[in-house]
């Protein structure tokens, strides 16, 4: 992921830095949810209960996150605020899913869209013709 723009309506913004902190943190967690994180369960037992096997985003998995606020005023909220703590987690998965659909014509309806799932989606789309073309590209590359 090269860059990320978050435009968020949290109502009135009292602490702009705090607002951006929450948005950026939530977006990173949403990226993890959408692209990396999967609790593997077997008969009620978690198979990946450590950071080795349950991958959360590192500084290399998240781009610079630019946060813009749409400041509405929520009349029923304290000082016109809504809330900002978690809403940023919602968008990364659909954003990436939209990109995958745009590229491939369809998107696996499962999260996370980890590299294996996306590769299988690419392979299924390309089919036999795609496989042959990929093999030709691979040979040309080696000859170079």
């Amino acid at each position: 992921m090269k860059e990320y723009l978050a435009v968020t309506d949290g109502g009135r913004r009292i602490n702009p830095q705090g607002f951006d902190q929450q948005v950026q943190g939530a977006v990173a967690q949403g990226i993890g949810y959408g692209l990396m994180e999967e609790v593997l369960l077997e008969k009620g037992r978690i198979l990946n209960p450590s950071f080795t096997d349950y991958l959360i985003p590192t500084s290399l998995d998240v781009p610079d996150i630019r946060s813009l606020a749409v400041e509405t005023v929520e009349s029923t909220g304290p000082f016109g605020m809504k809330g900002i703590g978690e809403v940023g987690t919602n968008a990364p998965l659909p954003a990436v899913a939209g990109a995958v659909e745009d590229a491939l014509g369809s998107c696996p309806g499962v999260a996370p869209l980890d590299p294996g799932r996306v590769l299988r989606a690419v392979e299924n789309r390309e089919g036999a013709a795609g496989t042959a073309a990929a093999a030709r590209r691979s040979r040309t590359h080696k000859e170079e």
Partner: protein
Amino acid sequence: MEIRFVLNGRNTLVETSPDRKVTDLLREDLGLTGVKEGCGAGECGACTILVDGESRLSCLMLAAQIEGRHVTTIEGLAQGEDLHPVQEAFVEHGAVQCGFCTPGMVLSAVHLIENLSGPTREEIREGLSGNLCRCTGYTMIVDAVEAAAAKMRGEGSS
């Protein structure tokens, strides 16, 4: 076994078993609770300390390994009331939320800045890739390290 080492600039002597985990030695025997244990398995980086100036995971070290070494924990970074430039930058740039990753993140950043000129934002991200943070999404941490590095190079105000 007696272990002699320099801790945050002070000569220190402890009597402990040679296989005592360094995180426990620092936190429980020496009261330096700024050293955090996030996973205890070398995955998260929260336990990062400096040993002879290099960032190391204290949860993967045994007491015998620090014999004769210079150890720096987060408590040893500030000079009295004066924060280290990296600490100041973290405060200014909003790089701290819950703070649990922060000691390890700051020490990794110190090691990075002292050993890599620049560094670029991409190099900062790579240098901090062993320190997990769940709160910040890393952008403001990178901002802080970039600013601290500039200040430590003497480039004007942060």
